[in-house]
């Protein structure tokens, strides 16, 4: 435990209510919005793993969903549309002792932020990434998002979107995420469990969280009935087997278009996280860099020695 960052590693029992900010206890989401469920599940999951508000950094983008940083008590960072991941992963590199969670909408993460998603997954940063997938742009009033079904109508798509929806789980897999799950707002206990696993997983944990948007996405309804692929008799696959995982994902994504809601853990891999890779190569210090700045004993290197050796 570092004395200048003493919220870290306290290991005390934490109550889920500690994550309700007194200043803004009630989200401004619409009645019936699926985002409420993510918030609740996250409060439970973080308290279950025993991390306290001040050792959590929650980085979000912009969108209805990204406002979760206002409603979850911790160090919050409500950044830019699509840019939560590069901020989050750098914070984790700077201080791996933090629990770093990135979150945002499907537009935020798979649309404008798609490149960061792909590369953060590839690099396997040890962070949790929650995508609130409501298959629509909520905050900007109902336009098609990358996950909207073909035919989705809005003022921008008056004749219906002509695009097939992106396959978020398959993309995560191809890109290199090492934990991939889908859960849904209507399934709070599965959601909480998956979040706990994601937090405990070392590496990039990608959660596609189905969150109905009753205001703009009437098609999506409530994402019911849902099926837990782990619990259902109908499905039998091994999430540590990439080929099986890929097939299960494909089926899950396709069946969503048909109104069949499959959820669960899809892929779990134990390849080393990026941090571990970097530390192994000597290109990242073992102790969190952030602590060095308050370490009075650290003797800081200076350029003089480089100049003398290289330039005279």
């Amino acid at each position, binding site marked *: 435990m570092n004395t200048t960052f003493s919220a870290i590693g306290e290991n005390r029992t934490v109550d889920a209510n500690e994550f309700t900010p007194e200043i803004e206890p009630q989200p401004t989401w619409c009645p019936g919005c699926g985002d409420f469920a993510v918030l609740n599940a996250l409060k439970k999951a973080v308290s279950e793993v025993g991390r306290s508000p001040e050792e959590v950094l929650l980085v979000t983008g*912009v969108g209805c969903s990204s406002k979760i940083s206002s409603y979850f008590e911790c160090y919050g960072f409500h950044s*830019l549309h699509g840019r939560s991941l590069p901020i989050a992963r*750098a914070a984790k590199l700077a201080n791996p002792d*933090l629990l770093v969670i990135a979150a945002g909408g499907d537009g935020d993460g798979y649309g404008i932020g798609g490149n960061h998603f792909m590369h953060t997954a590839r690099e396997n940063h040890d962070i949790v990434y929650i995508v609130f997938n409501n298959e629509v742009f909520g905050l900007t009033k109902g336009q098609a998002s990358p996950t909207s079904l073909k035919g989705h109508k809005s003022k921008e798509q008056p004749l219906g979107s002509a695009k097939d929806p992106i396959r978020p789980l398959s993309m995560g897999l191809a890109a290199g995420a090492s934990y991939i799950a889908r859960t849904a707002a209507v399934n709070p206990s599965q959601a909480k469990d998956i979040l706990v696993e994601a937090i405990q997983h070392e590496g990039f944990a990608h959660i596609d969280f189905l969150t109905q948007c009753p205001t703009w996405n009437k098609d999506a309804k409530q994402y019911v009935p849902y099926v837990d692929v782990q619990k259902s008799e109908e499905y039998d696959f091994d999430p540590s087997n990439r080929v099986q995982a890929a097939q299960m994902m494909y089926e899950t994504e396709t069946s969503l278009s048909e109104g069949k809601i499959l959820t669960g853990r899809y892929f779990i891999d134990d390849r080393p996280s990026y941090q571990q890779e970097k530390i192994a190569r000597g290109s990242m210090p073992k102790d969190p860099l952030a602590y060095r700045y308050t370490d009075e004993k650290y003797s*800081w290197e200076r350029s003089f020695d480089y100049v003398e050796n290289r330039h005279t």
Partner: protein
Amino acid sequence: MDSELIWRIAGGSGDGIVSTSDNFGKAIMRSGLNVFTHRHYPSRIRGGHTYAEIRAGPTELKSRGDGYNFLLALGDSFGRNQKIDSAYYGNERIKPLTENLYDLHNGGVIVYDTGIIDIEDVPDFSEQVAENNWHVYPIDLRSIAKEEGRDIMRNTAGIGATAALLEMELAPIEALMKAAMKGPIFEQNLTILRNTYSMVADTFEFTHDIRFPSGEHNETQALVSGSHAIAYAALDEGCRFIAGYPMTPWTAAFTIMCGILPDVGGISEQVEDEIAAAALAIGASHAGVKAMSGSAGGGFSLMSEPLGLAEMVEQPIVLLEAQRAGPATGMPTKTEQADLEHVLYTSQGDSTRIVLAPGDPEEAYEQTRMAFQIAYGYNIPVILLYDQKLGAELRNIPLSFFDRDPDPSMPGTIPESDLIDAPHHPSGKYHRYNYDAKDGVSLRSIPGQKHGRFHASGNEHTQEGHISEDPINRVLQMDRRRSKIAAIRTYLDAQNVSNNTPYGPLSSPYGILTWGSNKGTVEEAVDRLNSSGTPLVKALSVSDLCPFPTQEVTSFVESVSKILVVEMNATGQFQGLVKQQLGAYGDKLYGLLKYDGNPFEPAEIVAGFEEKIMGEN
């Protein structure tokens, strides 16, 4: 006889002329001379018009000088697919000779590699030689090199020939070769060097005047570029995190940092694009590390939105912006100063950022340290704006200049022990954005600190950072953020030394205003213009662009009757900034602009002054 040497080595990109000239420059410096280098190369890996220049002399050198007086033309051997003869367009192979004749002084020396260049192909060569009194030494460098080693070693042969013709001692060159190479490579090069040296000394009758100047240094010198100075300053400020994406000419500083950081337990990250690069710097800084990023103008365009975020959440970051000729991809390896307005204003909303533009490597070091001090002291993004010229030019600085203490402190943060008594919202959230903060600087807490939690948001926000559209809060927060700019001007004005450098006799009737990397060239021009003894012109080189040094510039402008504003762009961006800041004196200002990709030579400034300022008298 020229009292100084301006030596140019020309060949194709990939011919190794950069490392050869860098080493030769160091040898010259060690011989007791001052050194100033310049590079010219195209945006491709192999071939094209490429040269490196070394100016050397016993007195202080502030620019590349005018033209040059010694050409070593290696010929282009890598033009294109070298196995196919037709791979050379027309005269590609001889271009290192032909393209360089233009600037060679009357009475200058030409050494060319007869192994590659057939002089018959050069139109009117002998007429030109006669007309300009050039002294030509044709040498088959390639064969000499091949005999003892490999084709590429004709660089070394060229150095041997140069040294012989200049009657320069080989010892410093050999010492550097020994340090840089080993085993048979070293042996081969050494032999080539010595063989060429004696061959040239023995074979040719020297008809030229130029000889190696003699000089002496009082103290050990270091040969550094602006990119080095910047990277070393970052290191001394305790910067231990860099994120970036390669882009000429910023890559130079990024590369130096990437080389050093693993050594000192830091982290360097090459990422998917520049949006991510800037965002990573923000994330690392947020979590408590001194972080930086940077790019050239194109990548900086992509950083526009994250830069605005850093302004809004008051996240300290230092961004380098290394200018090259634009717009768009422009001329990637050529210098220019046309990103000034881009850097000052890109990103939506009223900007709250600091922009510093050093004029030479020493200033680059000082201003980079200042950039970190301001960023991490005032919780504000700071941009260090420089250019290909400053980034790549090497010159010697006393080693003692670098004998400084590191300073990793971050005065803009609050220690955990102070947090509990600091102002909080009743809900327990820390007032990270406190209305009443002194100088507008509300101290930031860092994730993991107890009692420090707050909400950082790119939306307008309350004292604890929650989103708010309340108009009163809005105005308070805007005013506080913006007030830092004035506070920083006050802070800069209170320093012992200004970052903006006056030069030349105070009583001069005319002035030259410039900014950034033109500083030395302008100063050299000022010296020449005043060489008659009567004070004619003085200069002010501006290095603080925002906050603008209004007072210094105003008194300078008021003290003269006409002013030449020297800058490397097509629209007079700095002149525009001066007018915008002063709101007056526009009729005193005359622009001297250059935007063909090459930096000013002092004579161009002298001529520009004579035409634009004196010509109208």
